[in-house]
């Protein structure tokens, strides 16, 4: 245990130097790309917002089933199979049929080539489940059907969320999928998340529909409130134009009426439809509906064939900017709910960094003094190893550009406290060995050998805890497990290579000295 080859010494020195350089690169700016790495600060240290969004897929499921009713009805009509009492209840389609058609219907739904099972080939699973009881059928999405639907709406929502956040222009946002119906958004440096929250909270489903004079409750029309809550209008369910047809939208100051409006331009299809509707509907009111609320419902005075127009609705400049942004980035496939939010202001983040650093420094000084007081010359060796341990730990975090959180700093401080354990185990063992063994070299050698299993045991138990935390913990806690876990490896390295090397150098120079360690 006491022999070090020259090559090994060089190797240890080089590795230590390398990590020290990386650790120091946090303090300086190097031109070199490889050297100029920095530890990322977690949201709790640099300030920022963490938002967990959940996609409310219920409306999507309802909508898809609604669309399916048409498909199913047409499909069986062609085959001359009568289905009656067709209804959509609780995300389930129900209908009845007669005894003769029963088996045919079931077969059609279970068939692997039927158009009800568009991805049977790929997933070996049906899109729809069908249950029959006394000619009464219940059709709903299968497990796989729901999964597919959720994944696709998650993909779409992720794209829209990314566009909206990019439009606002926050720096280095982190937008990730979580599960199959959640989206995680991390916005560093953002100190007021209100605007983003309100922008992400809107589906931004824009439609142009005629206001009808039909009486209340009539088929094909619905009563909608105005955005400002002052009025209500009966609006046709028939959609003339939707947000999908929009090419661009911008806020503008309308100098004529002296108010802020949102101007928009339409794609070719949209322009054609808009032109036709405006020429047929002169004199009628055209409602502009956003997320089920009427923004405004101007009277059509002229045919608009240019494919561009403007929306007015008593906007402030801010609200017009936001609406234009929402329209440009497109509608979400389903509403998003913010189910978790954690925002830290930048000054609290700075306070946390300061507090963490002070705690680290003070904890470090106390541990170093105590160990020096306990072991004198070997205390100095332990402390050198401890300092290098810190540098290597920080160096590794830097190389991987890991994220440091406040609990992460706590993990480093705890590593300082626990790292000396290995050297303490060794030195205490050597002391015991020296009671029976007069030869310093032999005593030191067997001290190292006999303490090894205990040291490994001690570190493996902590490592188990750290690994579990890393995989099960969330956010800042992950940072704790990261520093604690890496700390175990750096501790073993510094104890077995650096502290042992220094010990060997010292002991071989003082072989004959009695009472080397007390």
């Amino acid at each position, binding site marked *: 245990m006491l022999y070090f080859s020259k090559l090994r010494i060089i190797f240890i020195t080089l590795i230590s130097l390398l990590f020290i350089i990386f650790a120091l690169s946090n303090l300086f700016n190097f031109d070199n790309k490889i050297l100029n790495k920095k530890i990322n600060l977690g949201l*709790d240290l640099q300030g920022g917002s963490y938002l*967990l969004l*959940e996609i409310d897929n219920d409306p999507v499921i309802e909508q898809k089933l609604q669309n399916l009713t048409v498909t199913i009805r047409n499909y069986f009509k062609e085959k001359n199979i009568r289905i009656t009492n067709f209804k959509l209840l609780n995300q389930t389609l129900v209908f009845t049929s007669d005894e003769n058609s029963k088996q045919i219907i079931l077969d059609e739904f279970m068939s692997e080539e039927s158009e009800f099972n568009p991805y049977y080939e790929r997933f070996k699973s049906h899109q729809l489940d069908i249950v029959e009881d006394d000619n009464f059928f219940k059709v709903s999405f299968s497990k796989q059907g729901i999964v597919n639907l959720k994944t696709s709406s998650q993909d779409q929502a992720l794209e829209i969320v990314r566009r909206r956040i990019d439009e606002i222009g926050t720096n280095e946002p982190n937008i990730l999928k979580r599960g199959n119906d959640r989206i995680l958004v991390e916005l560093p440096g953002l100190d007021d998340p*209100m605007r983003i929250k*309100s922008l992400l*909270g809107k589906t931004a489903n824009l439609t142009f529909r005629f206001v009808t004079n039909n009486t209340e409750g009539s088929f094909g029309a619905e009563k909608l409130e105005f955005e400002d809550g002052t009025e209500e209008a009966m609006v046709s369910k028939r959609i003339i134009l939707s947000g999908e047809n929009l090419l661009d939208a911008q806020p503008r100051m309308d100098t004529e009426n002296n108010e802020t409006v949102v101007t928009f331009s339409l794609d070719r299809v949209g322009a054609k439809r808009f032109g036709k509707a405006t020429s047929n509907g002169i004199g009628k009111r055209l409602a502009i509906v956003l997320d089920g609320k009427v923004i405004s419902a101007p009277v059509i005075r002229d045919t608009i064939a240019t494919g561009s127009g403007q929306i007015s609705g008593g906007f402030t400049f801010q609200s017009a900017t936001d609406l234009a942004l929402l329209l440009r980035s497109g509608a979400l496939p389903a509403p998003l*709910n*913010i*189910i*978790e*939010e*954690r*925002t830290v*202001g930048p*000054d*609290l983040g700075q306070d*946390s960094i300061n*507090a*963490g650093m*002070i*705690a*680290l420094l*003070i904890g470090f000084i*106390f*541990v170093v003094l*105590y160990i020096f007081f*306990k072991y004198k010359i070997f205390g100095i060796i332990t402390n050198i190893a401890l300092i290098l341990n810190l540098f290597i730990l920080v160096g590794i975090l830097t190389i991987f550009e890991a994220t440091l959180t*406040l*609990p992460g700093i*706590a993990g480093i*401080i*705890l590593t*300082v*406290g*626990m790292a*000396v*354990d290995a050297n*303490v*185990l060794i030195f*205490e063992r050597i002391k*015991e060995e020296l009671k029976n063994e007069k030869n310093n070299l032999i005593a030191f050698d067997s001290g190292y050998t006999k303490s090894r*299993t*205990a040291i490994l*045991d*001690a570190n*493996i*138990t*902590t*490592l*188990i*805890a*750290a690994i*579990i*935390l890393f995989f*099960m*913990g*969330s*956010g800042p*806690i992950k940072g704790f*497990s990261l520093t604690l876990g890496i700390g175990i490896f750096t501790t073993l390295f510094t104890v077995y290579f650096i502290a042992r090397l220094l010990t060997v150098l010292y002991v071989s120079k003082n072989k004959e000295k009695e009472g080397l360690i007390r």
Partner: protein
Amino acid sequence: MIAFNKYYNKFNILSVSLVIVSLLLLTFKGLNFGIDFKGGTLIELRSTVNKINVSSLRDNLSQMNLGDVSVKNFGNETDFLIKFENNENKNVIEEIKKNLDKSFGNNFNFRRVENVGPKVSAELLRSGVIAISVALFLMLVYIWIRFEWQFSLGAIIALFHDVIVTLGLFSLLGLEINLSIIAAVLTIVGYSMNDTVVIFDRVRENLRKYSDIKIFELTNISINETLSRTLITSITTLLALLSIFFFGGEVLKGFSLAMIFGVIFGTYSSIYIANTVLVRLNVTQKTVIKEDNKN
């Protein structure tokens, strides 16, 4: 040599009562779950003027229909921590901001806002419980591979003792259980195990060495031989933790406190619980020799 074994019985009685009291506390008083596990909203405010106090803030917020609002000073006079339960209103934070600005002038800095929905908090609680269970289970596996069953049993009993008593103390003092406490509990599990294993290692070594010493004496010898290591490591770990507790800021207070309790209990239990299990199971040289022959 200190005669630790003289007090084996007394401390066993003490530990059994501590565990029973803790379990009773956990059953009847329960834990004070923070918003991570209960759901709700937390706001940390700093006022830029000195005149605002907790009660005026509480009066102001209680008019806002937020349900059960708790307002406390946080760290110092001008910092406040506001907590309330889950609220249907999506714009609640904006409204609080407006309301405070109206009543107190624009003197507040919203330093931290956390909002955890009921679904997320239930998930966090579940994954926390799973994490601790998995950790305990893996420790069990590790110790089972590593030692004879008598030792494993001792280590596991010591481990459960530490976790239960630490949580019991949190219940007694009404300290908040949040995500970082789960991290602390897991670290305690690791630390307690580590301490026990070091002593057990020595017990096993001594069992092989001395055939004529009874386990009652032998554990005492082993505890004494490893005592200075136990103390030094506990002291350096406590030094680090105390410095987090006093200087690491408010956010880490609960975490470091849980760890401080855990280290103290962990050190105590590896001496007075893990070892007494060996004594009560009457472990002899045969126990370890048999295992050696098998290998």
